[in-house]
């Protein structure tokens, strides 16, 4: 076979790119780790496929999930993706912690391997763990909270998921074929220009992030429209639950913040593929433009990551304090203020780029301004707890840990907002400690709280509490041990992205951080155990009534699991916390006076096509297999245009009689259930119907 034929078919892919073979040819430790990781991916895929075949699950997987446009199923698929990527991201973080614990004058991981680890870890955690997780929760919860049948554009929703999955697939494939970028999650040029990084790594980063970024933009559009247009009658903006408000703000940020990233990525791609010189050293290229574009995305992005978590905490704290949320309007104003301000502060990511002191000072002050609404939010949550009846259920444990730890991150955030201090701690582990302080107690705990909180709504049974507590406390202890020491070593001058060091004073701190990584690993394992135990014992935690937490918002008025059409008839909303008000008045489980036929959108292949051909497009581009790239692009374009022309050809109609039958059957079951007080919240007697307990104000 001639060389040119090979490269026509396989582009620049060659034998050396196959990571899973490396251990056999160069058996040194790093190659063994790389090969091992790729074997895990390969075997994981094979075992999953085998299990699906064995249990004959391909059919249901396809028809019930992959081609479904049901927002709840799409949400679940997002979260499954997020959990898988969380596992990989955490393990990479743990390997880096282990390396640095051993890193005085050396360690066991090579410099290049370490660089790939922090780059994949950062990219995965942001784009393929946190983003899918919050998108999944928004998908599941928002339509239920606003009383909608589905999102405004169900097919588009499936497409967004497909694009996100294709980005994640590229990152997973990079573990098996070729290397990933070493440019960090930010991929700053000129380091990532082809003259410096000619390999496939940066291209993997570009296409993974671009595909996922497109998916996120479309999600943003979808949910802005959904929230503004699909609300049930009576659900005025100021009756929307606080999570939905946060989701609205997040979606707006997605719409306006993702495009700069896509543009920056495509400009970098133009440099790399077409010989442009946007960010090169020569011919007038200037990396400062990349820094500006990237952070015009990057700063709003941190609010995209945190606002949904804020929304979860708002619901969780109100519910588990048995109280109305304090300062609802204040919280709404604070949320929108944060969203607005978040577009005006991006320069704080490069105070050190040499601009004038006036400019730095203005951006520094603008950054500190965001601290005001954020602080007010925390106080509002505290006021929500005030004079409540607080149950320390698992989501509430996350929320309490969040409040205490998050304000410490706020403190270091204020420090970083001051150019004088930033000059010293920028690019050090102090910064790494700060953003993990926001991302773990903030985003990750919020997502895990939401996962625990809404799990019964989606699957009809609660997660196991005991394992939930073990996981939560392992996360909290692990976070604390793994990241508090980094503040110290950062102040002592330890730079980020640094494989090893020569200052022996760092070592004790890194050993403590290593111990923290151990607890984090335990937390990850316990999450898996929790899921297994919960599924095994699901009959003990059945959520028949659909309201296991005595919660306040509309989604808890539906059966668990929620039927595809969400609500038997469109609810009419008369108040904030509509369900709590109804329960209080004794109208919690009313039968509607009349039913009508329900029309639902038909299934679509859009998501699957986007996932498969998006991956193929990215793969073709990464390896310069031009035929594959063109072919995939053509398939994507043709199928999308065809779908647009043909429209939804298989809409589903559910007759009114069927809706009535199902709803009545559920009401029957609810009446048979004994309502429980909150003292029995974790008990197997809690079947999802809440007893009226103390709805009158108790005096001192």
């Amino acid at each position, binding site marked *: 076979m001639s060389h040119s034929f090979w490269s026509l078919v396989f582009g620049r892919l060659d034998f050396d790119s196959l990571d899973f073979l490396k251990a056999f040819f160069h058996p040194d430790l790093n190659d063994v780790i790389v090969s091992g990781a790729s074997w895990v991916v390969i075997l994981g895929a094979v075992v999953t496929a085998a299990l699906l075949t064995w249990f004959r699950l391909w059919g249901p997987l396809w028809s019930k999930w992959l081609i479904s446009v049901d927002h709840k199923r799409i949400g679940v698929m997002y979260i499954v993706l997020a959990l898988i990527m969380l596992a990989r991201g955490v393990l990479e973080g743990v390997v880096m912690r282990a390396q640095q614990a051993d890193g005085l004058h050396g360690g066991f991981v090579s410099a*290049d391997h370490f*660089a790939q680890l922090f780059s994949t870890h950062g990219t995965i955690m942001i784009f393929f763990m946190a983003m899918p997780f919050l998108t999944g929760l928004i998908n599941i919860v928002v339509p239920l909270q606003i009383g909608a049948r589905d999102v405004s554009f169900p097919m588009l929703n499936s497409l967004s998921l497909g694009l996100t999955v294709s980005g994640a697939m590229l990152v997973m494939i990079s573990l098996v074929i070729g290397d990933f970028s070493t*440019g*960090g999650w930010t991929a700053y*040029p000129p*380091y990532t220009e082809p*003259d*410096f990084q*000619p390999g496939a790594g940066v291209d993997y980063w570009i296409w993974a992030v671009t595909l996922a970024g497109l998916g996120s933009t479309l999600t943003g559009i979808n949910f802005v429209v959904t929230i503004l247009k699909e609300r049930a009658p009576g659900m005025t903006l100021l009756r929307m639950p606080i999570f939905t408000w946060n989701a609205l703000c997040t979606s707006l940020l997605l719409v306006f913040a993702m495009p700069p990233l896509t543009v920056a990525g495509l400009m970098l791609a133009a440099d790399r593929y077409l010989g442009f*010189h946007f960010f090169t050293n020569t*011919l007038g290229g200037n*990396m*400062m433009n990349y820094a500006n574009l990237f952070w015009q995305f990057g700063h709003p992005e941190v609010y995209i990551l945190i606002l949904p978590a804020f929304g979860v905490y708002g619901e969780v704290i109100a519910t588990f304090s*048995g109280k*109305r949320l304090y300062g*609802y309007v204040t919280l709404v104003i604070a949320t929108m203020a944060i969203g607005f301000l978040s577009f005006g502060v991006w320069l704080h990511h490069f105070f*050190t*780029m*040499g*601009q*004038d*002191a*006036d400019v730095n*000072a203005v951006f520094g*002050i603008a950054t500190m301004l965001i601290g*005001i609404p954020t*602080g007010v939010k925390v106080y*509002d949550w*505290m006021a929500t*707890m*005030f*004079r*409540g009846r*607080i*149950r*320390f259920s698992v989501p509430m444990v996350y929320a*309490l840990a969040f409040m*205490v730890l998050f*304000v410490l991150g706020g403190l270091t955030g204020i*420090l970083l*907002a*001051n*150019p*004088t201090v930033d*000059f*010293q701690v*920028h*690019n050090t582990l102090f910064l790494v400690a700060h953003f993990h302080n926001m991302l773990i107690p903030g985003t990750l705990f919020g997502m895990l709280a939401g996962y625990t909180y809404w799990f019964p709504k989606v699957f009809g049974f609660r997660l196991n509490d005991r394992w939930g507590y073990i996981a939560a406390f392992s996360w909290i202890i692990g976070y604390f041990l793994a990241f508090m020491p980094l503040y*110290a070593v950062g102040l*002592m*001058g330890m730079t*980020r992205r*640094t494989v*090893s060091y020569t*200052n*022996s*004073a760092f070592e004790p701190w890194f050993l403590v951080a290593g111990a923290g990584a151990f607890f984090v690993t335990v937390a990850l394992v316990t999450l898996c155990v929790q899921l297994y135990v919960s599924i095994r014992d699901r009959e003990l935690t059945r959520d028949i009534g659909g309201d296991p937490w005595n919660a306040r918002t509309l989604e808890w008025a539906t059966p668990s699991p929620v039927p595809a059409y969400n609500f038997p008839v469109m609810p009419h909303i008369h108040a904030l916390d509509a369900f709590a008000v109804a329960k209080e008045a004794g109208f919690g489980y009313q039968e509607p006076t009349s039913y009508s036929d329900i029309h639902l959108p038909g299934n679509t292949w859009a998501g699957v096509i986007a996932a498969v051909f998006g991956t193929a497009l990215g793969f073709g581009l990464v390896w310069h297999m031009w035929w594959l790239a063109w072919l995939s692009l053509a398939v994507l374009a043709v199928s999308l245009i065809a779908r647009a022309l043909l429209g939804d050809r298989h809409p589903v109609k559910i007759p009114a009689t069927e809706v009535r039958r199902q709803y009545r059957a559920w009401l029957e079951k609810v009446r048979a259930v004994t309502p429980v007080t909150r003292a029995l919240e974790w008990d197997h007697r809690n079947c999802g119907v809440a007893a009226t307990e*103390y*709805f009158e104000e108790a005096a*001192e």
Partner: protein
Amino acid sequence: MEQSLLSSNPSVRSCFCLAGIVEAKSAGCGSISCVKSAKLRIMGSGPKRRTMRLQFSRRSLRLLLAGSVVLLTGCSDKNQSFLTPDGPVSALEHYHMWLITLITLIVVAPVVVGVPLLAWRYRYGNTRARYAPNWDFSTALEWPMWLVPVAIVAVLSVYLWIYTHELDPYRSIAADKPPLRVQVVGLDWKWLFIYPDYHIATVGEMAFPQDRPVSMELTTDTVMQSFMIPALGGQIYAMPGMVTRLNLEADRTGEFEGMNTQYNGDGFHAQHFQAVAITPQDFDSWVKTVQHNGAALNPTSYGILARSSTPAEVHNQFGDAAMPKDITFFNDVASRLFAGIVMRYHGDRAVSPAEEPGTVAYNAKLASK
């Protein structure tokens, strides 16, 4: 320096990045003098006044923080860091950091303390505590909730404005002696320090007299890097084809760790150097030593120096027994070396990868020779 560089080269008008920086900074000069005159009214001006305030603040804070500093720096011999500042810039940055921390604690501490207290007091089992499920707003509470953070941020903003200007890395440090000029070139995995007034250059060590400001101009001849000597002051990016500035000073003699903080490849973790503050007499003799014992830095040797290598590897290549371990001295340095490196990226034609340090092609070319 940049001005002369600009006027001496006609092609520079087309390169907006360098010109942009120069312009931005000259605009900045005006504002700095504004702040200075404002300071006249607020707290007097001039270096003397600043030192007084600094000493006061450092004394009062030192007691408070002694414990934490000891804890953080441990028993290491290499404890020069931001936590033990040894120059006016880092000292003020350090002071500002703790000042912000203390002020911000006013809004942070109530949460750290209050959340556990609230959670315990209003726990489900405590039926003695009052329960007000429908209480969801209080104007009396709303005022402090907003106004306290607003006040804190207002106070912090005033300090931020003042110190950001005072600690502008471009601002020269007031002193009776003229600053020592050092031109810093970032190369892959080492910094090259050029002393234009002495025609010498070093790698792995940057020596300068104590109590005399050092005025640095920085660029790179590869990807972006960031230059920092934590014990003396904060960092500044160094970028190809552009010049940034940094002004530092050491209060005492000593060795301070310096580094690149911006990841730039496999040897990144080795891109450290010693910043050495010595007496003026020692500095003069150090300069003589370098002038006599250095390797010649001509285009050929620069070409080899510029390839990706750590300071130790540079020493193995160019060093000899007269130079300290991992440190390399160069002499006969052309006075336009730094300007030439900056301007190279502003030509009308592209710098080919084989001529661009840090690229794969550049390293390969030298390896094959």
